[in-house]
């Protein structure tokens, strides 16, 4: 199946952009559209053929690691989403999804961040919508969302101070 996802990286400071793009092409990332519009960064929109979402995402991470060893993953997408993003992905209107949120306030997924804009994990939203039934969600999209969430969590985990880990987790349990 074809899995569509985006990996965003911070490039090592001394990396030449043309060189990086050529190396990625040689490393098998020629199934990704590469965006280079922001200085020091690349975004790779993969359309990767694989047996599973895990195989697709992991092989892509591996290819990039091999081609550009110092590159630091910023984000795997789609994971952090607003209501509009979810609406676009599922093919419903933003108003419709907002209505669902208001009517099912008790069970609706809790956002990661709430403020001038609210942000959710796409995987949480999709599994909730799937439980509600009536919404057709492509298996490949749902599988990718589960993986991108795990990858982003794993990417952030090293920032957690070991001294804090036990104490804070006990407080949150």
């Amino acid at each position, binding site marked *: 199946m074809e899995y569509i996802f985006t990996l965003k990286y911070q490039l090592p400071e001394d990396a030449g952009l*043309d060189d990086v793009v*050529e190396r990625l092409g040689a490393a098998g990332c020629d199934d990704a559209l590469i965006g280079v519009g922001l200085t020091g960064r690349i975004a790779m929109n993969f359309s990767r053929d694989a047996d599973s979402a895990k195989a697709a995402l992991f092989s892509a991470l591996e290819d990039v690691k091999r081609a550009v060893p110092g590159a630091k993953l910023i984000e795997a997408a789609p994971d952090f989403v607003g209501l509009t993003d979810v609406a676009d992905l599922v093919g419903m209107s933003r108003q419709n999804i907002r209505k669902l949120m208001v009517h099912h306030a008790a069970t609706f997924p809790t956002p990661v961040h709430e403020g001038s804009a609210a942000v959710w994990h796409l995987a949480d939203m999709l599994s909730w919508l799937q439980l509600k039934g009536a919404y057709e969600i492509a298996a490949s999209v749902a599988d990718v969302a589960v993986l991108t969430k795990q990858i982003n969590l794993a990417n952030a985990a090293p920032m957690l101070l070991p001294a804090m880990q036990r104490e804070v987790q006990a407080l949150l349990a």
Partner: protein
Amino acid sequence: MTRTAHPNKEIEAALRHAEAKGWRVKVGGSHAWGRIFCPFNSSECRCGEFCITCIWSTPKNAFSHAKAICRVVDHCAEQKQLKLVQSKRAE
């Protein structure tokens, strides 16, 4: 049109679609056939990375590559804004 055409006809069609929306196509590279540049280049843009997008000369799957190019062009925030303004004017 003075630039060289992309050897793949699906990708060439996607590039023409981009040009029709005001994107600039620049040819050059080896694995990379060239790049496309968003006409707006706005600091407000939310899809910033893809304001400059690399095009492969022989992607793994030309059809998927062409589709991805169209996705970038059509999802451009400025483009959407423009569409909104135009539809409001039409009303």
